[in-house]
């Protein structure tokens, strides 16, 4: 009886104990540094290869559209991949257009672009343009696909998109050589695929939080997405491809540790469960005899 009650108490472990272990598994690897091997998955490599391809075939006339469809909540996961991709685009001298479907993402996008353009010495208007936020999501995408200039007559600062080298030749979404949506929820990859890619047939990729990645696998197989970068692990892989280690690669230590701790807890939970079941059966058998 006593054995069962001990097992039961372990079985119903106070959730705060689990929280504590998860907290430590995330905190400690930040303090103790060690290297982990990083191998780029096929879906991540496809994005890298496509940007290389745009650079090769289009050179400086190549234009890529990045849609920042996330806010601060998922910044930790999505910003590292955004930085790695922008670094890649800037390194290859490809023109960059940035926009966003999330109003709360405007400030972080501005900060990120200022930081990256300063690092790579890129000029606003000639190398990159920030269009800002417009409401509408699905409707906005359709509008951009039909008539880009009517959807974005001006950039985020109210200057005409006809005046920038980067945007003056863009008429519809199909004029972009590549579109990547960094998505953390509603108003992101799915809307881009359904209302953009499948209607206007441009090449596009997605970058999303780890929990959402599995949502988009069907689009990969059907060819509607040519690549997908999922979560911090995807960011780390892209950083490794570009050769620019950042918070993605740094984050792999705590993420790996947290996964291991979680697995240990799941296994322990199962051991308690099976022990409990065994003891209960034994007790019942004892009662019969």
């Amino acid at each position, binding site marked *: 009886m006593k054995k069962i009650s001990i097992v039961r108490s372990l079985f119903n472990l106070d959730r705060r104990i689990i929280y504590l272990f998860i907290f430590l598994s995330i905190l400690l690897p930040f303090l103790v540094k060690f290297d982990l091997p990083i191998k780029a998955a096929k879906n991540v490599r496809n994005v890298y290869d496509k940007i290389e391809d745009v650079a090769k*075939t289009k050179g400086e006339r190549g234009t890529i559209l990045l849609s920042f469809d996330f*806010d601060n*909540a*998922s910044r930790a996961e999505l910003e590292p991949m955004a930085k790695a991709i922008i670094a890649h685009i800037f390194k290859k001298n490809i023109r960059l257009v940035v926009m966003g479907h999330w109003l*709360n993402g405007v400030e972080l996008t501005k900060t990120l672009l200022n930081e990256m353009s300063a690092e790579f010495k890129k000029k606003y208007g000639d190398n990159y343009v920030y269009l800002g936020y417009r409401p509408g999501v*699905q*409707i906005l995408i*359709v509008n951009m696909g039909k008539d880009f200039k009517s959807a974005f007559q001006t950039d985020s600062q109210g200057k005409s998109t006809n005046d920038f080298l980067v945007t*003056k*030749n863009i*008429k519809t979404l199909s*004029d972009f050589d590549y579109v990547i949506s960094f998505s*953390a*929820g*509603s108003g992101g990859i799915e809307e881009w*695929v*359904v*209302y953009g890619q*499948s*209607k206007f*047939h441009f090449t596009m990729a997605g970058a999303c*939080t780890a*929990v*959402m990645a*599995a*949502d988009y696998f*069907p*689009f990969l*197989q*059907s*060819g*509607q997405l040519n690549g997908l970068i999922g979560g911090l692990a995807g960011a780390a892989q892209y950083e490794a491809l570009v050769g620019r280690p950042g918070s993605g690669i740094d984050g792999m230590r705590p993420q790996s540790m947290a996964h291991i701790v979680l697995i240990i807890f799941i296994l322990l939970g199962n051991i308690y469960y099976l022990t409990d079941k065994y003891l209960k059966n034994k007790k019942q058998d004892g009662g019969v005899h």
Partner: protein
Amino acid sequence: MRNLFYLIFNFFLLTPCLLFVFTSVFTSVMTMTITTTARGEVDVLVPLTVPEGLQLIDKPNDNGQALMLLWKKNSSANSSAPENDKISYEIIIAENQNGPFFPVGKIIAPFKTKYDFPQLFGYAKENKEYYAFEIKGYTKPNEVKAGEVKEGEKPKTTDVLLSPNVTYYVKVKVLEEISTTPLKFNEKELNEVLSATTKGNWFATNKTNSVLILIFLTVVIMLYIYWAQRNPHGLFIRKIAGLDAMDDAIGRATEMGKMALFVHGLRSVSDVPTIAAMNILGRIARKIAEFDAELKVSHWDPIVQQVSQETVKEAYIEAGRPDAYKEENIFFAAGDQFSYAAAVEGVMVREKPAAIFHFGYFYAESLLLSETGAQTGAIQIAGTDAFTQIPFFITTCDYTLIGEELYAASAYLSREPKLLGGIKGQDVGKVAIIAVLILGTIFTTCGWERFSQLFWP
């Protein structure tokens, strides 16, 4: 005033709903459904020295703002040779046969074939024998007065896009790279002047399969709805535990004297899961009004809130309890994902509802909401068509409606024959899809792709 709002709402919000939800979900899903089988790889292509059989045509299935330049693959070329990146073509275009001609751009290897544009030319194997290049616009030098351009400065240019219903004339120049340092080319301009007129198309022929499937599904679903109305007793719907438990959950709230909380997902009123959730809310509100319990509904979108208010109010009126309806209980929590989660969690922790219903499309906030609900000890019933969130709801809620069960809920709860008929029609559609998938898999595995291609976009 409310009627006026309602009218505006219906006009402007049902338009996107029906505009986008139906057509886009339909076409995109058919695209996905249809492209599940493997496609053939495009051959490695060999460019030619002089393009043979040049043709200029209006781009099919477009808005009349592009032309296609086609030429034949060189039959004498060795198909196993690597891509020849020494050869490129320069295209020039004019609105008059005698010019002036303006540059369109350079076509460099690897060239695309007609097969790479299936939306325009289909999937015929012969299409691999023709190269294709899309002409969308050209570069025109700006008019300048003498002395305005300084020496050494590049003249400014404007990019011009092709217009509909205009005849264009195109010439091709062949460039062969003979040395890289310094870069030298052999040039040869072809004498032939090609011409074509841009024309907008009234029907996208590449979507014929989509139209036929749309007609098929519409007819089948409508026929079953009609049939169900005439034979209301001939319909069976399997048991959905989550929906059966709804009465118990509401009953529990009534007995405990606590409220029931309905949490809407994170999509707008034009999305199907939100509409499905709204249908369920109507049924729940009616039961709650009958049981005389309290109902609170949280929203992420102000328009969804307006519609919810109307739905709940109508339900209370129908239940004969208009006095029990409190407009402030149908509240807007926050317009941001995690602020919304925080606000609703706050309500759960402070007011400890006896029953919590999560219906609609959820993202990462699903676990935050349902785990907090589980901690407060409420009976939780969830329903979502968001794949990734289903596991979280299953682990934290007492009952979870998966995928299409969410859509079927309204019919299940009301038992109205015409709604049940719709579900029956849907099942026939599903059988048709399964048949196509099985046949497609068999034929493609046997090397016959034509069948699958019938369903490709």
